[in-house]
């Protein structure tokens, strides 16, 4: 083997250096740059931080994997008719100022939920829908969540929240009482409302055509 050829031979040092340089480049682009660019984005004026109950509800949302079927990122009308379906305007980075972990989602087995609180603000509807999705949306493939409720004969205790099911679905003599998890989850869902106007595009994003 010539000396020139040996220069190109793969060895441990080249492997480590090459592999790590390449990975740092990718990490810089996809992790560090967004970190630097988004760290100081102020929350939009219309966006309120979550309350303690809403945050509990957010944990229930995560624990039961709602994010595997519901996205929280309406797309621009130029790309998809999300706004026409009532899912809201295209979201911007500031809309997620209080969202850690992020719940952008990757599937729309069910509809987008970023503005579900604006679209469907009724607590009764949400509780009933969690207990019996098909009572409210025929053909829905959302699982029912009976374990978020207490079903018993007789009357509810004072202070308990009773689920008002549609007459066809209610069983006589039986009450369905929402557990705290269900109530918190509904509080979180109702809080999902980004209908305030989006912030102006950041100068950086505008200059590179970022905000379209």
């Amino acid at each position, binding site marked *: 083997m010539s000396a020139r050829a040996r220069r190109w031979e*793969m060895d441990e040092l080249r492997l480590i250096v090459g592999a790590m340089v390449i990975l740092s480049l990718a990490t810089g682009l*996809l992790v560090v740059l*967004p970190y630097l660019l988004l760290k100081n984005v102020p929350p939009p004026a219309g966006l309120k931080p979550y309350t303690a109950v809403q945050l509990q509800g957010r944990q229930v949302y*995560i624990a039961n994997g709602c994010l595997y079927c519901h996205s929280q990122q309406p797309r621009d009308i130029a790309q998809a008719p999300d706004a026409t379906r009532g899912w809201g305007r295209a979201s911007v980075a500031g809309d997620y100022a209080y969202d850690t972990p992020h719940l952008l989602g990757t599937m729309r087995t069910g509809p987008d939920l970023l503005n579900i609180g604006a679209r469907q603000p009724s607590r009764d509807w949400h509780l009933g829908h969690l207990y019996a999705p098909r009572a409210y949306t025929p053909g829905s493939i959302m699982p029912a969540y009976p374990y978020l409720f207490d079903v018993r004969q007789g009357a509810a205790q004072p202070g308990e929240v009773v689920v008002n099911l549609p007459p066809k679905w209610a069983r006589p003599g039986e009450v369905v009482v929402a557990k705290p998890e269900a109530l918190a989850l509904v509080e979180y869902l109702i809080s999902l409302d980004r209908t305030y106007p989006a912030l102006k595009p950041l100068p950086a994003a505008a200059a*590179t055509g970022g905000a379209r």
Partner: protein
Amino acid sequence: MDLTVSVLLGTFILSVLALFVFIASMAKGLFGSGGAAAVQIFDADEIGTVEDPAATQSQRGSLQKAMDPSTLRTQRDAREVAARLRADQSSSLVVGVCLTMAVVWLVLASVAGLIASIKLHTPDWWVGQAWITFGRIRPIHLNLVAYGWCSMAGIGVALWLIPRLLKTELVGARYALMGGALWAGGVAAGTVTLALGYSDGLEWLEYPWQIDILLVVGGALVGFPMWLTLLRRRVAHLYVSVWYIAAGLLWFPVLFLVANWPGLHFGVQQATMNWWYGHNVLGLWFTPLALAASYYFIPKVLGKPIHSYNLSLLGFWSLAFFYSQVGGHHLIGGPVPSWLITISIVQSMMMVVPVVAVAINQHLTVVGNFRALLYSPTLRFIVLGAMFYTAASVQGSLQALRSVNTVTHFTHYTVAHAHLGLYGFFSMVMFGSIYFIMPRVMKWEWPYPWMISAHFWLVLGGFAVYFIGLSFGGWYQGLAMLDKDVPFMDSVALTIPYLQARSVGGALMTLGHLVFALHFFMMGWKFGPRRLGASLLAPPFLSGASANTASATTARLATATSTATAAGAAR
């Protein structure tokens, strides 16, 4: 602004420049003496002799005939045989343990996946308990597949390949064993926490960070022995498979640590990090492990060096460079800067370079010898896996295009694509590798060859139903969602028959895995007829006469390397 523009420009220029440098240097033959490194995996005189411990005696005879019977060597250098035996023995316990755990996770993961699939079209089935709800069993399935089956199988195969490829013994096998146990403990604990509803809430990163510590420590205990072994190599050249394994062992810990670091990421930045991780765990961890295996087993089974060694170098570096930056295409249309998505789309298209390099290299090694697939169980799985790799990668590049992505994003089409990669490619390659490796580890033949065939046809048939069904269903779902005049519920309703087809396919795949696992454990307990000697020294079978000669050779070898082969030859 200046920063982003210069980064964007810099990346483009660097990509294109790097590509030209590679092509130019290839044209000038600058990549060292490719030949010597490419034949590294063969002993002296071994080229031309087929090898598949998973094949029966008659299959092996046909396999040799399908290749070139005239090149068959019955003489082998006893010292080299002994050295390989030592390499194999140094790793056999930890490899056996890792692969056994992988098979257990595979069965559990398939059952979890099947349950999740059925629940998606039967939403009122088994809803009483929280732990089995769709939103919990689905991440349980994904994490069992990723960290249970795929990672443990990949680690097991890598642990077995490394000493062989470096012609030395595995350093610190004990630590690797401990690492494997910790890793498995982490997967078990992670599964339980997900069932109980404790999740970090990020796809691919669901295990709570406290559990991740087990995986980090376990992974380090497995990784360090492999790197220490690498530093004590007794070979002049590093074979392609070594690059992939060694780099994967460097990349994965960085990915996993950065991604799981508690309290570091926020909001949309966390989303870009999520897909930086989610795509790199495939591109820089699973893909390298499976490519390492296919780069070893395809030439090894055929007894024929890889088509072009230089091409594999191009394939390796371009895979690392382009694959690592494609993650952003998961957020097309999302609230992230456009430059980021554009870079990812461009690099997704550039992925054609490494894919073509690997495809040419691996497929041209097989071309002309397709009959070999009939006789070699190992090759059948691995070559099929390599084909799925090409298919999945080309599909992935196309899916990153805005026009295609607008339809497929948020639909079941993406799920089908993910399975083409991690199942069609990765898992098939692992099945083939395990069929090759386990007879060496256990010093026992696979008891029932028909079970290998049953496994193959069940998973192939099941996967075909799964993939075709879900791809069509997902595409139609995407079109319906884009049509503003179609109510959303129609996009749900139209998928149901396809989701049912997926359950049928998934059930067949699960059945195939049960056959595989049963066969695996029957071998573990040494069931079945004993057909051959220690398979390492099994004579290549051609006809009665040559078989006799070959047995004589075996006998001679056994005397020559009596200590090393005592265990194998005596059984």
